[in-house]
């Protein structure tokens, strides 16, 4: 009886401690669990793969450092894929607090592939007002963003000379941690202007994307850290990058953490069901 009671009431400090160990140990000593690409992740990869060299891929950073472990590796992997194929990249964001991450990712990856600002990639940054920005770019990107993140007029950037609006963007990806994000782009850019788009979301909001995947409004989906690891797997498999894959490394920790939580839930339920049975028995005896 005591064992079952203990199972149903494990101290939260013990849970915290075991979870910390389960997360930290695989980061130091990786197990090497492989994330093979799902069809959803492959669809995003294939869409980027189908962009002809010289044409632009647009990425929206709709997250902040809170969702960095899941979405930042996606951003890095997608940038590596695009730059390796000589696809031009336009980065912007609907979350002001994510702009520093955009700057960081672009600086890191552009230097790996010797890409030049204004010629191979442009960082538009953030503008206040969500809907006017998303809808405005459907009409004219340069009117919505007269200058880039650094204050340089878009007219003066060589890469932007042939890009007017969404019609000139073969593929778009929203890396979204909530609202504004994927849903905003689907409702206003995809539905109104027919923008071909994919999304990368946090694992917790991946379920929200399924209706749009079925309707074809989303070409593909990278769901959580697993989605990032799958994209990294594809980028490495094709030989586009040899850099350390952050999400792939972290997947070991996440796998074990999930397993631990499930074990705890099972143990908790065994304890709970046993106590309930005993209480019923005692109640019946009385």
């Amino acid at each position, binding site marked *: 009886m005591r064992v079952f009671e203990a199972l149903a009431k494990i101290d*939260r400090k013990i*849970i*915290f401690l075991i*979870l*910390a160990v389960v*997360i930290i140990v695989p980061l130091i000593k990786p197990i090497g*669990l*492989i*994330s*093979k690409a*799902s069809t959803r992740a492959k669809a995003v990869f294939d869409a980027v793969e189908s962009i002809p060299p010289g044409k632009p891929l647009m990425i929206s950073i709709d997250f*902040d*450092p*809170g*969702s*960095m*472990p899941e979405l930042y590796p996606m951003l890095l992997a997608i940038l590596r894929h695009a730059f390796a194929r000589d696809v031009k990249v336009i980065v912007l964001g609907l979350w002001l*607090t994510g702009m*520093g*991450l955009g*700057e*960081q990712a672009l600086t890191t990856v552009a230097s790996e592939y010797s890409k030049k600002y204004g010629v191979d990639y442009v960082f538009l940054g953030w*503008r*206040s*007002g969500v809907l*006017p920005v998303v*809808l*405005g770019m459907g*009409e*004219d990107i340069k*009117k*919505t963003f007269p200058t880039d*993140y*650094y*204050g340089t007029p878009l007219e003066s950037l060589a890469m932007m000379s042939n890009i007017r609006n969404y019609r000139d963007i073969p593929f778009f990806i929203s890396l979204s941690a909530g609202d504004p994000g994927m849903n905003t782009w689907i409702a206003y850019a995809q539905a109104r202007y027919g923008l071909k788009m994919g999304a990368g979301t946090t*694992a917790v909001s*991946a*379920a*929200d994307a*399924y*209706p749009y995947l*079925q309707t074809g409004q989303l070409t593909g989906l990278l769901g959580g850290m*697993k989605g990032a*690891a799958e994209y990294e797997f594809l980028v490495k498999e094709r030989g586009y990058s040899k850099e350390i894959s952050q999400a792939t490394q972290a*997947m070991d920790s*996440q*796998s*074990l*953490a*999930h*397993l*631990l*939580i*499930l074990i*705890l*839930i099972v143990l*908790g*339920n065994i304890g*709970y*069901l046993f106590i309930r049975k005993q209480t019923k028995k005692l109640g019946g005896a009385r």
Partner: protein
Amino acid sequence: MQRQIPLILCLIFGIFMIVQFFVPHPYSQRAYEVVLRWVRIISIFALVLGVGSLVLYHSNKIKRKVSGWGFSIVTLVSAIITTLVGLLGVNWLDGKLVFFKGIGKSSVLQIFFQNIFVPVNSTMFAMLAFYMASAAYRAFRARTKEATLLLIAAFFVMLGMVPIGSAISPRLPEFAEWILSVPNLAAKRGILFGIALGGIATSLKIILGIERGWLGGGK
């Protein structure tokens, strides 16, 4: 009059935007672009209002020495420093502070972001993992039939969504995918339809002046 003009404007522009969506004529497109430009301009005022109310709220807290007023000082000082650093384009170049050099890689704004905001924000969210593990252990109990169903679905999705799931059985990710693609999708679609219909109804009430809450000031 103070309430009539906004209501009339809302009615005119609301109906115009609905009609415009279905009219691809160049005049209609040009009008749409003008409206969008106006929306962009007006939305900037929201930023001014936001900054104004933030300063006012925290200044009042400091003046009245309300509990936790020290945090308000931190908020205001941080906001002022960050704004100044960004506006003045302060950069750290070759061990010196230089001004009006933009907000790029070497900017103090980016240094603040990478060394203060990223760790603080990440730490806050990282702690959630621990609370969620503890909460899942306590809350996921098979108390009712519905809770048991939720428990079983969560079990398979959690296991199927990580590589260890496919290592246990290749069927697990397939089953997790089925849960997401069929029962989840059906429920989500129902919710989305509900939200969309509710949105249309509310929008019509606002356009027609039945719902006036957005005007503020109670009745």
